[in-house]
């Protein structure tokens, strides 16, 4: 095969388009499940950081620090190989979902912690003084206010998670990155490096870019709103 961008190479990729579509779908599925898991972990662990009970706050710190300060690649190897050797085989898909969910759950927890922490103490007290339960206070008063602070970094985490499906390669996954790599190194399909990687990149871009754009827009909108609110406060102070 001659030339990185030769017609042959492109045709080869086209002929195996099903491989790329399969990888794309696998990456999407794994991501979606892992995103859900990371959101649940993020909310639960994040709320723990706000608890009155020191045990829950400790759990939050240990979880977040441990997960954030060890490589994702190591975590997924532990989950897959270490557990496999002890006789608990999870399977590639489940391992991928768990590893990504647990890893990004730690980051989501920090996102939720920051978002809820940004709400003034008086809001919590107003809800408590009215007799709201913890859940009622969070649901009606605190979360609706923190959601606009939480959303932009939350979407960034989702984008990172989707890109991090690449680590599934280490356990022989059938995600987009793994299948692309297998394709370009395969005995019968090998060699079409440039087109294959371009297609792979384009597919990732197709999911991640709109999400990033959305996050950016939210962030800009948030800043504008903050400006308005600060202005309104100034007006109040001046009256």
């Amino acid at each position, binding site marked *: 095969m001659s030339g990185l961008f030769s017609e042959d190479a492109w045709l080869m990729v086209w002929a195996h388009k099903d491989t790329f579509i399969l990888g794309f779908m696998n990456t999407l599925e794994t991501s979606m499940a892992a995103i859900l898991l990371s959101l649940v972990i993020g909310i639960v662990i994040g709320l723990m950081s706000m608890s009155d009970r020191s045990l829950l706050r400790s759990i939050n710190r240990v979880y977040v620090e441990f997960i954030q300060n060890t490589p994702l690649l190591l975590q997924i190897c532990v989950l897959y190989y270490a557990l496999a050797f002890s006789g608990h085989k999870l399977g590639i898909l489940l391992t991928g979902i768990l590893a990504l969910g647990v890893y990004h759950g730690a980051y989501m927890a920090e996102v939720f912690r920051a978002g809820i922490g940004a709400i*003034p103490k008086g809001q919590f*007290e*107003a809800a408590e003084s*009215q007799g709201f339960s913890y859940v*009622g206070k969070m649901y009606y008063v605190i979360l609706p206010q923190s959601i606009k602070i939480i959303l932009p970094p939350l979407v960034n985490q989702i984008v990172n998670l989707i890109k991090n499906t690449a680590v599934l390669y280490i356990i022989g996954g059938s995600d987009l990155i793994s299948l692309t790599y297998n394709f370009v190194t395969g005995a019968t399909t090998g060699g079409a490096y440039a087109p294959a990687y371009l297609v792979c990149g384009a597919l990732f871009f197709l999911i991640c870019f709109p999400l990033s754009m959305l996050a950016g827009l939210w962030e800009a909108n948030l800043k504008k709103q903050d400006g308005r609110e600060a202005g309104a406060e100034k007006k109040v102070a001046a*009256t």
Partner: protein
Amino acid sequence: MMIKLDHINKYFGDVQVLQDINLEVREGEKLVIIGPSGSGKSTTVRCMNFLEEPTSGHVYIDGKELTRKNKMELVRDTTSMVFQQFNLYPHMTVLKNLTLAPMKLHGKSREEAEELAYHYLDVVGLRNKADAYPNTLSGGQQQRIAIARALCVQSKIILFDEPTSALDPETIQEVLDVMIKLAKEANITMVVVTHEMGFARQVADRVVFMADGQILEEGPPEHFFLNPKNERVKKFLSKIIR
């Protein structure tokens, strides 16, 4: 007794902010708590709805002991609070601020809750602000809305924690006027932490002076104007009564 504080002590870390506070408030009584900042007056009212939990001692509300376990129900059913910083919910309109607790906690229908809300908006003179968001209102208006929100749950007790301290001088009176009207017309038990001695003189049944976490002197408001006994009280009053 509507409220009874029984040998309340409160520590923040190593600092003792309340020392053996004993205080009883009758049903319908208007009690004003005055004193220099850092004297524990805010902490005292915040113990009455367990926003602060006493380190030791007992709080009784309407005959029932307030505990960590029952505080949600007991506070919901008996007390409201008006804060120094208003603490209106900024993501809701005024009407939503007023109807949230009645609908979600007191089982009122939307119609009932809105009827109540408009009634109390009339009381505070802000019916036309029902659809406004809190941060578009002046401080005085926000505090009047906060008072309406406290009234909407029709509790027997309203606690006021320095309700005019964050306001500009021009808007203080409009808030005080609403509070005076309430004190004169309604049989609500009011506990008010404030520096407004004119307000105390007009509506208080009893004034309590606190300093260094203790109650130093108490009596009817005239007592404080005519012949306070404690030197700390005399010095403090000479500074705030002009």
